[in-house]
């Protein structure tokens, strides 16, 4: 047993870096997946819509912790080779983000009136051009508050990567707590760091939403 020292603070900073890396990677790949899922869910073809709905039901029906374990132990099984833990963890969080972002953006796309698609069509735009120039900008604006809100969920969710031994902020906290036995103090610091990141985002999301309701 030892007391909390600057070494621990440096370890927190190091862990925090990996939290940010994990959030950035999962948000990027999750965003790509989410775009695909949102387009599938709003596609005119019923089988594609059903397929996307099925994926959504499955992923949203599993706890994030189980999703994480599934891919952590599953990636080597699927691929037949050992994968670095960052890769396995990123895959799990990207799929989690993809499904939620897909659902948020589907809502955004559907909130844009259908006549806007028709207006684009009557201007002679292709379906891709209608989406790219008419629908997507409006849908993005509508779904921005919820997207920022989800980012908070994702940041909080990455704390679960600690369970598979990935050293991010929570895991750095667990290590320091085990060494010092000052669990409440250490975890309060860790909670304060998460709060310092998430609270401004929550506030921003709320002000975006208020602005949207005011002008919309």
């Amino acid at each position, binding site marked *: 047993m030892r007391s909390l020292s600057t070494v621990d603070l440096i370890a927190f900073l190091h862990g925090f870096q990996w939290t940010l890396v994990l959030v950035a990677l999962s948000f990027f790949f999750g965003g790509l997946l989410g775009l695909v899922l949102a387009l599938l869910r709003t596609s005119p073809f019923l089988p594609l819509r059903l397929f996307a709905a099925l994926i959504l039901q499955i992923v949203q*029906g*599993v706890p994030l912790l189980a999703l994480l*374990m599934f891919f952590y132990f599953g990636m080597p099984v699927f691929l037949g080779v050992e994968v670095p833990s960052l890769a396995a963890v990123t895959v799990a969080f990207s799929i989690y983000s993809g499904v939620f972002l897909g659902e948020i953006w589907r809502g955004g796309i559907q909130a844009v009136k259908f006549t806007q698609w028709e207006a684009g069509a009557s201007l002679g735009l292709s379906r891709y051009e209608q989406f790219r120039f008419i629908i997507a900008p409006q849908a993005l604006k509508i779904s921005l508050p919820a997207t920022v809100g989800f980012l908070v969920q994702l940041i*909080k969710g990455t*704390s679960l990567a600690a*369970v598979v031994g990935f050293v991010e902020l929570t895991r750095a906290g667990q290590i320091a707590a085990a060494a010092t036995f000052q669990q409440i103090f250490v975890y309060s610091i860790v*909670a304060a760091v998460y709060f310092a990141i998430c609270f401004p985002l929550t506030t921003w999301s709320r002000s975006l939403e208020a602005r949207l309701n005011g002008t919309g």
Partner: protein
Amino acid sequence: MQNLNFQQVLRYREEFIDGLLATLQMTGISAFFGLLIGVLGAVLLTRGPKPVRILLKSYIEIIRNTPPLIQLFIIFFIFPSIGVRLSPFPAACVALSIYFGAYAIEIIRSGLNSIPKSQIEAGECLGLTSFEVFRFVILPPALRNIYPSLTSQLVLLLLGTSVASQIAATELFHTATFVESRTFRSFEVYALISAIYVVVVVSSRVMFAAIGALAFRWPVRR
């Protein structure tokens, strides 16, 4: 693909069933106390004195902007430091009630706020007492408005109970780690419990939707 072997894992089916029951029990207990916090908190947040409102608001913001896993750790370690011996299962229930309560307050408050003032005034004009106004004018449409978000938050609570395994509270996810340590069939174990969660969650969503469709046909039709 390596060889998958579900045989060994399925030998523990009784443990999985016990784990599932414990998960449902934990969800039920936390939902009950969380709803209690939600109703009280929503009333105090709209009617209470200013210091209480500020306290409640900071409670909501702190819970909503920190990971449940960390909340669980802090609450689990708080009990021994104040001299209370509490085993993991009740400690997890306390943490999850506090967690669910923060979301429930916001949902219930927005439901109460969604009733237009003019309707409440209309009720008063008809000579209803303030209890009658609440019972007949505010409550039925407010319940209908909050039902979808409250039930989906309940499903999230059910999924959230899995983090309780991290303080060794026995529930479904903890069963998985137990069986994994006995069989070393990690992937099979987590594939199986993922499937159990999906079945439980999808069927409870269907159940909630059915109850909602039956309960809210009357008195106001959409």
